[in-house]
């Protein structure tokens, strides 16, 4: 049951975006975020909106997958909008009912801020939809490499990789544990809050123990296979930039520069 849940939201199809190097996508994502929060002019918002549409088309991800990916966080966008509408008291009064009042600035600001959030969520969702978790991890590792004297980049990347690899396993074990404790009469997920918390212990304790044992056995297996950190270690899977990556990066850098220019002029 639980073991069938898709990890992250990666959809394995072939598209322009899928074929880009993960580093390109990560850098582009970062630059987009910079852009979203700097732009102020209407035409700039329109440019961003067209970028959203263009990226959506290039990803070949259907509406269904996109919506399913964004849904868990979209409520935050709605929430932000309503918050601004209700709290912002600038501009002209548009509507009033009792102590609730809606002002024009509230609508405009609410719209702008929630639009920015929406775009942010859109691009991060597209990132995970078009990039396999392991590829993404590799991209992060490569980008952080220059900092390897300051932070243990290789170790962090390996930890991420191993954690992701074990998610289906842990989900399966959790499912089995829930069934086992339920079979003994322990009602998981039912009853009052206090009861639920009490009944979580028969789940959490065994899972922790299994996880510690797993960590120990994995460490031994890794050592037995000659692992000793990043010393003397080669990497088989190489990431390569191609022309498309360079093109995308160029466009993003240009766009960001223009945005900066507009901002400071």
């Amino acid at each position, binding site marked *: 049951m639980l073991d069938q849940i898709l990890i992250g939201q990666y959809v394995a199809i072939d598209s322009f975006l899928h074929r880009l190097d993960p580093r390109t996508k990560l850098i582009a994502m970062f630059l987009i975020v910079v852009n979203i929060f700097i732009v102020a002019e209407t035409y700039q918002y329109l440019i961003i909106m067209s970028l959203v549409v263009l990226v959506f088309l290039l990803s070949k991800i259907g509406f269904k997958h996109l919506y399913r990916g964004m849904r868990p966080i979209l409520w935050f966008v709605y929430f932000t909008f309503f918050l601004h509408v209700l709290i912002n008291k600038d501009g002209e009064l548009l509507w009033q009912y009792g102590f609730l009042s809606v002002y024009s600035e509230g609508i405009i600001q609410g719209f702008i801020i929630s639009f920015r959030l929406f775009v942010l969520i859109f691009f991060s969702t597209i990132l995970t939809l078009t990039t396999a*978790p392991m590829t993404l991890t590799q991209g992060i590792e490569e980008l952080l490499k220059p900092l390897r004297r300051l932070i243990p980049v290789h170790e962090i990347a390996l930890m991420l990789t191993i954690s*992701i690899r074990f998610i289906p396993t842990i989900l399966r074990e959790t499912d089995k544990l829930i069934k086992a404790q339920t079979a003994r009469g322990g009602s998981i997920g039912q009853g009052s809050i206090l009861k639920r918390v009490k009944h979580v212990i028969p789940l959490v304790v065994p899972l922790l123990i299994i996880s510690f044992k797993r960590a120990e056995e994995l460490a031994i297996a890794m050592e037995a296979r000659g692992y000793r950190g990043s010393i003397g*270690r080669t*990497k*088989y899977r*190489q990431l390569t930039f191609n022309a498309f990556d360079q093109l995308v990066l160029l466009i993003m850098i240009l766009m960001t520069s223009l945005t900066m220019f507009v901002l400071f002029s």
Partner: protein
Amino acid sequence: MGDKTAARYAIIEADQVMFYYGDNIALSNISIDITQGQHVVILGANGSGKSTIAKHFNALLTPTKGDILVKKMNTKDANNTWEIRKSVGMVFQNPENQIIGATVEDDIIFGMENIGLSTEEIAKRLEQVIDMLQLQAIRKKEPYQLSGGQKQRVAIAGILAMEPDVIIFDEATSMLDPEGRNEVLKAIAALINEHSATIIHITHDIEEAIVADYVLIMSAGMLVTEGTPEQIFTYQGNLEAYGLQLPFSMQFYKLFLDAKADSSTVNYDTIPMNIDELVDALCKYSLKM
């Protein structure tokens, strides 16, 4: 299986090894030699120390007293550990907790990356071991999509790719269903028959010991007896005291001889090692059934 008359050298030598686990004496006076090309089985019940001694062979543990030499390198010298680990590969009991990679290919590559092989060499060996263990159909699969037997074969492939001198199977079949167990035993047989590998097989299953060149039995941290399967499996001696049982064919033959009404014709010298030999042995008696 290799030229038996050629001079064989000892790859692993254990000399009067003692190992204390806290106050517990886990290993007591163990001396073993493993020579190149041998198929050695270390038999014992749970808690006999068989896995503990196995972990000494690749320097995962070091002796409290005594020495372990791998290709003449002492395991107590930390400078040797790297070389030792390249020479002695180990497949573990739990199929799940030894797969690191996100896919079958990634896991096989992990060990090769650790020992610093070039990209070309890794690519070459990857194809070789995938072929040897027939993993072509599952090479891109993720661990959660694999059966226990498949996971163990992937682990074997990953070790083979490092081209070790010895491969240790530490209870590698204990957690598998019959299908998985057969997969792994077949793979081991292929390694021995087609590649003259040196194999140390740790197990509590007596049927797996019958095909060995040499058997060592451990109990309570001690090496209680050793010899060829023919020498070990006799009707004298008490395997039950060591938490083991005679193989079925021998157990049955013994019961048959005990039940034989006319005891003048019984032959205790015959030791049927498998069911076919048992049938042959039984045929020698005029059974009117």
